[in-house]
């Protein structure tokens, strides 16, 4: 049963990823990416990480993918379906990638002593706890990063600086502004 599920997930994952990189239509690319990401969530379920699977779907498919679709729409004229997504140099890229995969796969196979059966599951509660204890600093830094990214994205993507408001002329007698101040 588990072998079957793994085989299915692996097949869908690889196929959809291949479509992501080879699809001509940009919207199709992004939607195939959605399939890849959702299938990864299924892989997480197989790895007994259901929490992560749910987060994967909420964040990635709900967040990143939606953003991408928006990007596609905003950068194309809204009425046009045609989205050029040309590829170049498939041949040499394929050779490089095949070599790379060969090296990594060989490394995996050659490494001795990889565990073959998983030990106990990790409950979600333990995950939450480790977020707020062991990995607290990373957690806080991440929140700062998110804020920074948010500000950055807004600044980058907004249309232009609004015209600066005319600066009021300084009052002629600034020191009289508050009347009789007696420190």
């Amino acid at each position, binding site marked *: 049963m588990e072998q079957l599920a793994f085989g299915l997930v692996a097949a869908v994952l690889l196929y959809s990823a291949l479509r992501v990189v080879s699809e001509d*239509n940009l*919207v*199709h690319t992004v*939607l195939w990416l*959605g399939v890849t990401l*959702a299938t990864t*969530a299924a892989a997480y379920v197989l790895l007994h990480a*259901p*929490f992560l699977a*749910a*987060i994967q*779907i*909420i964040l990635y*498919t*709900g*967040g990143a*993918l*939606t953003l991408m*679709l*928006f990007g596609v*729409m905003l950068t194309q004229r*809204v*009425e046009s*379906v045609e989205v050029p997504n040309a590829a170049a140099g498939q041949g040499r890229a394929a050779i490089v990638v095949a070599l790379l995969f060969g090296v990594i796969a060989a490394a995996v196979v050659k490494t001795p002593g990889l565990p073959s059966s998983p030990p106990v599951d990790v409950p*979600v509660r333990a995950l939450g706890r480790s977020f707020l204890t062991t990995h607290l600093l990373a957690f806080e830094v991440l929140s700062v990063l998110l804020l920074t990214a948010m500000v950055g994205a807004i600044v980058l993507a907004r249309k232009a600086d609004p015209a600066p408001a005319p600066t009021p002329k300084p009052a002629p007698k600034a020191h009289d502004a508050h009347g009789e101040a007696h420190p």
Partner: protein
Amino acid sequence: MNPWLHAVLYSLVLVTVLMTCTAYATWLERKVAGRMQSRLGPTRVGFAGLLQPIADALKLLQKEDIVPLAADRALFNLAPPLTVFFALATAAVIPFSPGLLASDLDIGALYVLALSGLMVFPVWIGSWASNNKYALLGGMRAVAQGISYEIPLLLSVTIVILMADTMSLSGIVQVQADEGWFIARPFGLGLATFALFFVAALAEGNRIPFDTPEAESELVAGPTTEYTGMKFGLFYMAEYLHSIIVAGLGAALFLGGWDGPIAPGLHWMVLKTLGLWMVMLWARWTFLRFRTDQMMTLCWRYLVPASLGLLMAAAVWVHAVHGVS
């Protein structure tokens, strides 16, 4: 019983029941809408119009199935079944009574949220594939609305998770059965969270008054403009399914699910779901539609800060009651 077998059988039953309910939900809605507008609603087909849904379905099936020439055929055909699929998949974890649910996931609440986040995809796919300006505008609105209102929705459910100390929906209901319904949590915390959840869920499901993506008066019918016959019917069905399931979710998360005296749990759950769904109808036939910018303002300037504040208040309250666990 073999758990796989149980899951399959249960799913079949659930799908059948839900589909039937959806069909009769349209009848109920038309009846209620009629009463609210001093009309009678459907009366002709069958006793008190009871056969009206079947007549509608037959009518839709007979209609010509049109696919626009410039449309992206594959995606255009994919979108309608996908909506129904996502809507139905959500139902898997709703606990109808103790032990009566397809799968008691540990992370049931998150699962529901994940799927409701996915709900924008078929809508968007359909709108894009139609190659129609109205449809695309509607799709953009749907996506913007979906990802915006997902945040308060997520946060409100997070508050429930925080109070229940579990993410399993049946666990959440059990906690309510033991300690009292979440809607009745002190200081109006539960009520406020529920209100937040309800508004966000209405908007997430594109229900009136948040139906800007469809907006018949400006966008014809939004993403579904180009759809005909049963494909349109599927969209229509998914919308009703989704609203019923959201009502069920609200009942499970806040109103104690199957918890209730005397009658069996299933009765209570159905009663509460139906009640909540009727409130949605009430809202639908009472309010006017928001403008798109008003929707965004409501979400980002009011609901999101409010939900963050509520989350903090809930954390303080839980800490005060239970201490550090």
